[in-house]
Each structure stands twice: as structure tokens, then as C-alpha cells.
């Protein structure tokens, strides 16, 4: 018997999404089902062919909701990935694991969010809104109690402190942050699904208001509504389906600190070598048998521009502290950047679907259907949030 591995055993065969917008007036449940049905149709499969599901643990459309809405498919595997955006690629690792182990043959993954600034549509779990605005409704529990009383309440503020430390150590600059925002916006302008369709300049970035130093508004991901879904099946079955398969060449998960827990995040000092993303990266490259220089396009979890700069370091595209210079002079921009990234516009400029819209974009790149298509794209990296317990996959044509 050959060694157990997920390497190349599964492929993405269907993708689907809703329209994205800042306030669509729809429930997360409704948007989830639209994206799921679209993904099944794209694959040429019936929802009743699904025998496994993987979701974000924060996802409000759970297995029971799915069964009731999809005609009660016989699920032999259902799992969830924790840590929000950190799990945006881990969900694919879990799906591939189930398929490689024979626990499921066709796995549905989805993410739906009503996360626009004004997207809380009454009471109820499917109605969305900003998670952090509910802090303080009861006594603080868990680790929130150690920072929320001091006014550190939302992810952008926590990430600002991590980004500031990177500046303190390496001198990362506002201009470098702006390079990321400008590059990803240039991709969004080409993408008709993107919420942000107007080009921006370095000066526009600098003129946007500071929200939590050193993060300006244009350093931050959007707050939007929308849903995306994809269908994963076994590699041998994928070949017979409607779309060119995006094979999951390799996948890895790793824990190593979380942005909310700053006290333990920095307990090992400031060396990121043992953070989740670098740990995942080591396993990912080893399984894939390829190197960073072989990657044609990358879709990083772009919640904030400096975290993309750090992800370039974490995944070995450059050394520690070299991410800032790496992004200069259009370093991430289609078509000629050093490493073309987030060709949908990312979460900074397409939509914020908890990273999963970036995963769908990576599949489009492998199929050759992106609106900022990298010529001859063979290998795409998808990485989850790099200051969370995280994961990453490499897709192969």
C-alpha cells in the first residue's frame, strides 16, 4: 500500500458565486444556496451527488440548513475549519483529506457573509453584521477580556499592532502598503464582479483616512455581502466532469499564534519562523515538490495590505523583512509583477467573503478564465490568513 497522502488526490470541479455588494438586503442562508447551486451546475453535478461538506465554523448555514435546502443528500463527512480567514484554504485541505481517505467522494465547501457595514437584517443567525459590534452585550469571556476593555475590539485594530511591529523591525513603509492596494485595485477594475471598480493611485492611498495606525482605510479589506461555493471531487472522477479540473497538488495546515491573542502571539519574540503560516509553508512546499519560484499566481488572504507583505515572507517568496521591497514598482501587479497576486482584486477590492472568493479566483486562473489571466498558469498558491491558525494549498492545472 502506498503512503497515505492528499497529494494530487482531489480536484476542484465546480465554482459558484452570487453578486457581491456592500448591502444586498439578503440573508446569508439565501446567498449561500445561490452560490452552492451555481457551483453544482458549473460542475455538472446534482446537489444530491454531494456526500461531504466542509464549512468555516463561523458559517451560519450549517449542515442541517444545507440538508433541508438541498433535498437531504446523504452526507458521509462533514467538518469545519476554525479561525475564520485563517481557515480559508484549510477547508480545501479538509475536503481533500476526506476524499483521499475514502470518507467522501464529492465535497461541497461554501462561505456566505452579510458583512456590509449596514448588513444586519434584524435578529437571527443568518442576518450578518459586524461581529465585533456585539462585544460587550455580556461580560467578556475567553481571551477577549484581556484587550477589549482597553478599546482593542476589532480585527483591523489587532492587525494594526502586528503591522506596526513589522515596521518597527524592518522599516516597512506607507508606500509599500500602497503598492499592494494599487495593484489589487488594478485587478478589480478588470473584474466585473468586483465591488470596487475605480483605479486608485499611491496618492489616493495616502489620502485615505487613518483608521488604526498604521492602517489607512485603503489598507483594509472591504465589508461586503455575498457568497461563494466550490465542489471538490476525487481526481479520477474530476477528469470526466464538465470543467477542467484544478487539482489540489498539496495542502497544509498549521497553528502558531492568533492575532487576537497578542500576549501569546509575541510570547516567542518577534521571529515569525514558528508562526502558523511559515510552518504551513514548510509542509506545503515539501508535499508539493515545487518551490516558490515555480508558482504562477498567488492568492493571499489580503485582509490588510501589510499582512500580504508579511505573507510573501512567510511563504518564502522573499526573506524576512524583504516583503516591502518585493511589492515595490508593481511587484504584485498583473501581468508583469514579480509575483502576480489576487487577480480578482482580492478582499481589498473585489469583495470580502472571508478569503473564499480568492480561492475561487485561483481556480479560475487554473482554468484560464480570470479577467487578469496569467498566461500559461499551471500552479496557483492559495493561503489563509497568516496571523491566524492557518492553511494553504497549491492548485495545479
Amino acid at each position, binding site marked *: 500500500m502506498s503512503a497515505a497522502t492528499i497529494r494530487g488526490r482531489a480536484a476542484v470541479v465546480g465554482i459558484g458565486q452570487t453578486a457581491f455588494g456592500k448591502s444586498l438586503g439578503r440573508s446569508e442562508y439565501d446567498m449561500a444556496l445561490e452560490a452552492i447551486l451555481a457551483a453544482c451546475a458549473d460542475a455538472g453535478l446534482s446537489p444530491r451527488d454531494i456526500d461531504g461538506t466542509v464549512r468555516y465554523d463561523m458559517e451560519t448555514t450549517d449542515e442541517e440548513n444545507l440538508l433541508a435546502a438541498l433535498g437531504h443528500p446523504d452526507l458521509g463527512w462533514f467538518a469545519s475549519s476554525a479561525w475564520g480567514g485563517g481557515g480559508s484554504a484549510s477547508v480545501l485541505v479538509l475536503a481533500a483529506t476526506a476524499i483521499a481517505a475514502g470518507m467522501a467522494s464529492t465535497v461541497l465547501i461554501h462561505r456566505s457573509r452579510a458583512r456590509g457595514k449596514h448588513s444586519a437584517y434584524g435578529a437571527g443567525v443568518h442576518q450578518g453584521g459586524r461581529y465585533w459590534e456585539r462585544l460587550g452585550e455580556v461580560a467578556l469571556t475567553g481571551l477577549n477580556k484581556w*484587550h477589549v*476593555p482597553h478599546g482593542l475590539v476589532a480585527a483591523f*485594530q489587532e492587525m494594526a499592532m502586528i503591522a*506596526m511591529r513589522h515596521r518597527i523591525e524592518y522599516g516597512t513603509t506607507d508606500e509599500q502598503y500602497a503598492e499592494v492596494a494599487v495593484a489589487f485595485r488594478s485587478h478589480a477594475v478588470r473584474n466585473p464582479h468586483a465591488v470596487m471598480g475605480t483605479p486608485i493611485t499611491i496618492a489616493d492611498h495616502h489620502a485615505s483616512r487613518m483608521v488604526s495606525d498604521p492602517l489607512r482605510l485603503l489598507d483594509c479589506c472591504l465589508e461586503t455581502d455575498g457568497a461563494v461555493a466550490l465542489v471538490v471531487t476525487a481526481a479520477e472522477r474530476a477528469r470526466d466532469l464538465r470543467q477542467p479540473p484544478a487539482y489540489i497538488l498539496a495542502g497544509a495546515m498549521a497553528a502558531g499564534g492568533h492575532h487576537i491573542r497578542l500576549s501569546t502571539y509575541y510570547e516567542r519574540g518577534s521571529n515569525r519562523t514558528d508562526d502558523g503560516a511559515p510552518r504551513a509553508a514548510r509542509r506545503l512546499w515539501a508535499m508539493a515538490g515545487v518551490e516558490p519560484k515555480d508558482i504562477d499566481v498567488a492568492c493571499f488572504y489580503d485582509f490588510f495590505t501589510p499582512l500580504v507583505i508579511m505573507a510573501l515572507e512567510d511563504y518564502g517568496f522573499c526573506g524576512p523583512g524583504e516583503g516591502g521591497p518585493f511589492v515595490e514598482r508593481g511587484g504584485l501587479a498583473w501581468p508583469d509583477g514579480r509575483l502576480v497576486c489576487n487577480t480578482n482584486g482580492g478582499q481589498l477590492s473585489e469583495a470580502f467573503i472571508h478569503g473564499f472568493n480568492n480561492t475561487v479566483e485561483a481556480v479560475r486562473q487554473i482554468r484560464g478564465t480570470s479577467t487578469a489571466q496569467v498566461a500559461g498558469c499551471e500552479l496557483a498558491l492559495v493561503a489563509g490568513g497568516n496571523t491566524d491558525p492557518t492553511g494553504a494549498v497549491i492548485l495545479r492545472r
Partner: protein
Amino acid sequence: MSPPLPGPTRDDAEFWAAARRGELRFQRCTGCGRFRHYPRPTCPRCLSRDFAWERSTGRGTVWTWTIVRGPTLPAFESKQPYNVVDVLMEEGVHFVSEVLHCPPEQIRAGMPVEAVFVAASDEITLVKFRRAP
């Protein structure tokens, strides 16, 4: 409007009781001597479950920081812009808090700070900081 406040648990009640007395105390491993924060049942270095709540000098330096200017909870809106700091304490642990009476433009990494105690309710006293000489 008062900020959202913690509910103490069996793992951290001693921290909050000490703060109420005007003392900053961290867990210290009896086995290897390492301090730790947040409170937890085992030492991350030697895995010993034996510890004591030892008093901190209250002194440290700013490791990283932010100035919150954008959206925040209503309880904090009136004091924007305000700082949040991660303090590297002399004991080697990190502690998230705020430097009081320090204008945003004066916050900087490496700045020496010392703990002060601000009663927020009958039960909860928050550990804040001020600039130290």
C-alpha cells in the same frame, strides 16, 4: 458609557483580585521560573502545572502600538483617537493595555512605561500604564 468588562473565571480570578488591590500579578512557573500571561494551567516552557501568582515590577517598554481612529465600540468613541499598546514587561511577558495621558504623536516603540490601576467597577480594576522616567 463604561467599556465592556471581563467576567473573572477560576483560571484568572487571582489576577483580578490582585488588580483590585493595586497589584499586577502574573503566573510564575514554580518549576522553571518562567512568567506567563495570559493565565493558563501549564508552563509553556517546562509544562509544569505548579505556579504562584507573583507580583510584577509593573515596568516595561512599548513593544508595538496603534492609535484607534476608525470605527470602534460606542463605549470608546468619545475618547478617539486613543492608543492601545502591547507592553513587554520586565518579567518577559506581553500585556495589552493603554498608556494614559499620552498624546498619539508621542507613543513610540521602546518607550518605558509603568502600571497604574483604574477601577472600572466594584469587581474589575483595569491595569493601565503611564510614561515612566
